[in-house]
């Protein structure tokens, strides 16, 4: 499966237009926007892989890098973007309605290594909106469940009301994914686990020789998840981290998202930890 970027090679930063076909509210400040290209031919050829992102553009407000959160096998029909309304662009997107247009460039970045981790037990560790870029990986696993061993999803949010995709967990569990949910702060509705994501690692039996970890979430969570994974001796080549930086062009051209020798938008977002190790503990790098 080769992703097809829709970007016009002769026109810098020019997007294609996509229509908002549906908006699924997820939490108070997060919704999923379902987009379909105006031009059917573009939609027909559009493909992405789990973990990739698109640049969404609203003229006047600018572009925002948004992870694709939908099923890659459905990309012919629709592309889903789970968006938290925190910045200038995303707040403006929150004011859009079904039928409105957004500019779209993408997909960009290296995907989750779904092929390379076949045959492994898989731990998906994510926090907050970090579940969004992992959901396409989950869909991929659901479709090809037999290709993976034990699959554990550890997902944490600040409060029960901040949990994403609540009504899908049952289906994931039915497909033999061990879905472990935790919140930082419980409320009266919550009878599940309380605590941050890395805390729950010692609950799982992990065979480091056959385990791969995919993690995405707040930087502080990633840091401690990686520490836990290292403590459990998962090889650094099988700890995959999805990073976030100030992405502008998506093509490793504008220089913004550099980390050491990497352009995160092009060489990441997903990195094996072995590639990040030299920079992981350098302050402000």
């Amino acid at each position, binding site marked *: 499966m080769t992703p097809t970027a829709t970007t016009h090679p002769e026109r810098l930063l020019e997007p294609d237009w996509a229509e908002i076909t549906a908006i699924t509210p997820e939490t108070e400040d997060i919704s999923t926007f379902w987009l379909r290209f105006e031009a059917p031919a573009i939609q027909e050829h559009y493909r992405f892989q789990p973990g990739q992102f698109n640049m969404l553009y609203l003229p*006047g*407000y600018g572009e925002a890098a948004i992870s694709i959160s939908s099923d890659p096998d459905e990309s012919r029909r629709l592309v889903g973007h789970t968006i938290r309304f925190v910045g*200038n662009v995303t*707040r*403006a997107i929150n*004011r859009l309605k079904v039928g409105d247009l957004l500019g779209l460039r993408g997909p960009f970045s290296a995907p989750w290594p779904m092929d390379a981790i076949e045959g492994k037990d898989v731990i998906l560790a994510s926090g907050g909106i970090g579940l969004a870029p992992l959901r396409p990986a989950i869909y991929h696993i659901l479709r090809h469940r037999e290709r993976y061993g034990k699959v554990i999803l550890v997902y944490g949010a600040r409060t029960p009301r901040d949990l994403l995709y609540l009504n899908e967990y049952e289906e994931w569990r039915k497909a033999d994914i061990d879905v472990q949910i935790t919140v930082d702060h419980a409320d009266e509705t919550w009878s599940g686990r309380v605590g941050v994501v890395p805390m729950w690692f010692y609950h799982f039996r992990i065979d480091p020789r056959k385990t791969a970890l995919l993690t995405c979430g707040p930087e502080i969570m990633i840091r401690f998840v990686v520490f836990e994974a290292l403590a459990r001796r998962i090889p650094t080549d099988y700890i995959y981290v999805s990073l976030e930086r100030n992405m502008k062009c998506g093509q490793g051209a504008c220089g913004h998202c550099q980390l050491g020798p990497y352009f995160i938008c092009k060489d990441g977002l997903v990195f094996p930890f072995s590639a990040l190790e030299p920079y992981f503990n350098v302050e402000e790098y």
Partner: protein
Amino acid sequence: MSDAKKPSVAVYKFSSCDGCQLSLLNLEDELLDLAGALDIAYFLEATRAVKPGPYDITLVEGSVTTPHEAERIRQIRSEARFLIALGTCATGGGIQALRNFGNADEMARMVYAHPEYLEYLDKSTAIAEHVKVDLEIWGCPVNKHLVLECIAALLQKRKPNLPQYTVCMECKLRGTVCVTVAQGMPCLGPASQAGCGAICPANGRGCYGCFGPAGYANMESLSERMHTLDRFPGETALLLRNISGYVPAFRKAADELHIANAASQKETK
């Protein structure tokens, strides 16, 4: 669009020269569009017609220098949904804040035959020292295009696209030869907020920071470097103690230079 639906705008003047309000009136090409998009409810410089508040957008020019102004700005704030401090008098105290460094009573006696008729505060201060300000537009005067951008941003519910870098960026973007490097002039450009278009260096003189210090300005290094280029004693200190002189970063840097200058003069004596 009927006036009822258009956001209402009020423009007020405090202690200032009117220059920033004039910049608004100088938006000749855009004035019709503005009048079409906004309900100009209070703008004495432009029209005597006055509509009652509250107002959606309130622009305040000038600094607070009298007890009456201190009272009036609170009244204006109570009627303002979104308050913009317009120009460096309003954002930093302005050139009149130079009196903050001396004794106001003494100055009044020097200037006025009957200072007893004057009512004034000890210091000239920025609007934000008195009430909450929602947006500051710096400049002496303001750059009219930036004012327009801020109004456009408010109408479109977005963040205004204001430069977030120093005057040096603007010099380089327009191809100006650096006056510090090529002519040895002190210039506050490396520590000053951009937005003016780097007018002063383009006209062969150093920046005096009328858009205020950049948020991340390294004043210690700037002073240390620039004052070695002084063409007369205290030139850099004078640049600092100018339109934005009472803004903390510049105030502190000038104070430190004055102390250093005094010390070195003592030594030479």
